[in-house]
């Protein structure tokens, strides 16, 4: 069904160990700095200081209102297309072995990808003018 791909001949979990080290280092750095600045800076809090800044006028209502649906749509489209992109990766790594047959299959896939893409374009999902 599937041939042994590069995915299987993975490096050992140990090769990820340095990444853990780096994660620790980054965490330590960020944490320390945050901690340090918390104590270093002066603290003279007044209620006016803690008001959110809206170009100098008084804040009106809660900022957390629904934003334009376009942004949401973009996010959803990203999720969908990104996953399709993910499919290209294993293909790209193996595509020499798969040869022309694989290429044709990929063409079909791209055709569907483009089909979806043109559909959303036509539907106006990415029209930001209005």
């Amino acid at each position, binding site marked *: *069904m599937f041939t042994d791909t590069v995915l299987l001949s993975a490096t050992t979990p140990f090769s990820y160990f340095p990444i853990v080290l780096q994660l620790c280092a980054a965490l330590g750095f960020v944490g320390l700095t945050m901690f340090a600045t918390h104590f270093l800076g002066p603290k003279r809090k007044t209620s006016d200081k803690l008001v959110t800044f809206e170009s100098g006028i008084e804040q009106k209502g809660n900022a957390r209102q629904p934003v334009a649906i376009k942004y949401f749509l973009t996010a959803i489209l990203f999720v969908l297309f990104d996953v399709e992109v993910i499919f290209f990766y294993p293909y790209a790594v193996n595509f020499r072995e798969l040869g022309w047959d694989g290429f044709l299959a990929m063409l079909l896939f791209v055709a*569907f990808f483009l*089909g979806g893409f043109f*559909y959303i374009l*036509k539907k106006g999902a990415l029209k930001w003018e209005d």
Partner: protein
Amino acid sequence: MNALISTALAGVVMMFAGLFIRNKQHIKFVAIAALLIVSVANLAELSTIEGGSRTVLGMVTVSHFSILFNAIAFGATLIYFLLSGSAFEKVGEHVADYFALVFFILSGITLASSFSNLLMLFLAIEIISIPQYILAGSNKRTPKSSEASLKYFLMGSFSTGILLMGITLIYGAAGTFNIEELGLGNGDINPLALCGIILLAFALSFKVSAAPFHFWTPDVYDGSPTVFTSFMATVVKAGSFIAFIRIFHGAFTGTNISAHWQLLLSLVTAATLLIGNFTAVFQQSVKRMLAYSSIAQAGFMLFAVISMNKYATQGIILYAAAYSVATIGVFAVTMKLKDYTFDGFNGLARTQPVLAVTTAIFVCSLAGIPLTAGFFAKYFVLTAAVQQGNLLWLVVLAVLCAAISAYYYFRVIIAMYFKQGEPATKEEITGGFKVMLVITAAIVILLGVFPGLLLNLI
């Protein structure tokens, strides 16, 4: 394969049809034409298959059986389009998209009827499910619709998670996803595999709304736009069942393993029959009654799953056809009425005799009265269960439930024929609609007199 590819393409075509065709009614005709092409493509493959089946890349096995099932699904959908296609326009703006989603569901169903790999089972179930979430919420005017959609989505994706866990555990036990190579029934039972099978049974019970996993069904069916409920409760349900049967018959049979899940599923079947029937009795709305009755009918279709013999496969084919066609018919009539309660049907026989007669035939078929397709459908699944041997208690329970089901089905007839009233229709009943109804009823009766017409093809 033809069916799979052509339905997917048809879905894409419908998506684009919505962009380029302004007239909504033309979209319906495009959909019908596309469906006809799909059906022809599906049947054309029949002659190319030699020796019963052909496997494509170890993923999909196309056989006469799967092609026949596809043909039934397409046929039922065709009837559905013809009877209820115009109701699409009333749901919302995106008519072509609804048709496209229906085609995608169909492609999921064709995959469900022909998968030979657990991966494809998963994909089939999901391709069937996801468009349904959208269809359920497609009526943006009522909060009921979107809430039905949310409920369906949450429950559906939950059951998907369970399904996947089952598949994973089975993979852990067997080391392959290929159904023919699983080999779970031979030798000792692997506890991982058993857990996987049970999870799979639960998840699929969820998808076919078998008790005790049915609780989402009435709300979702009631909240969704009626025209889509009609599709979801019929063709889609049959498609889910075919997946259920294929996986359980194809992979989990074997001397050791089947006894374990069979008992479990018999209990599920019993619960489904009892809950579906008894709850349907108390419904006041025909739409809700049909929702519960679809649960009850699922109980009968579960017989085909647990009995594992040739009657079961024949039975599910007949059941799918009989149940889908009849329910689509009843829904089509219901949609023409203003009032979905039983009282809304009062006196229909006087004002709309054609509608009343055909509805009566559909309802008789659902109740399993002889000379309608429903009788032979029930007959086959009962035969399958009787032959299975140790399920007689369930069979007796089932026939008693069938007698109960006559109660609520016949309430429709009683309302139409024996009660006084002036049923208000939403719109003018066109002659074309009546002709379609009569043809559909004729199909129901034809299959009831000569079930061989379908069985010969298997």
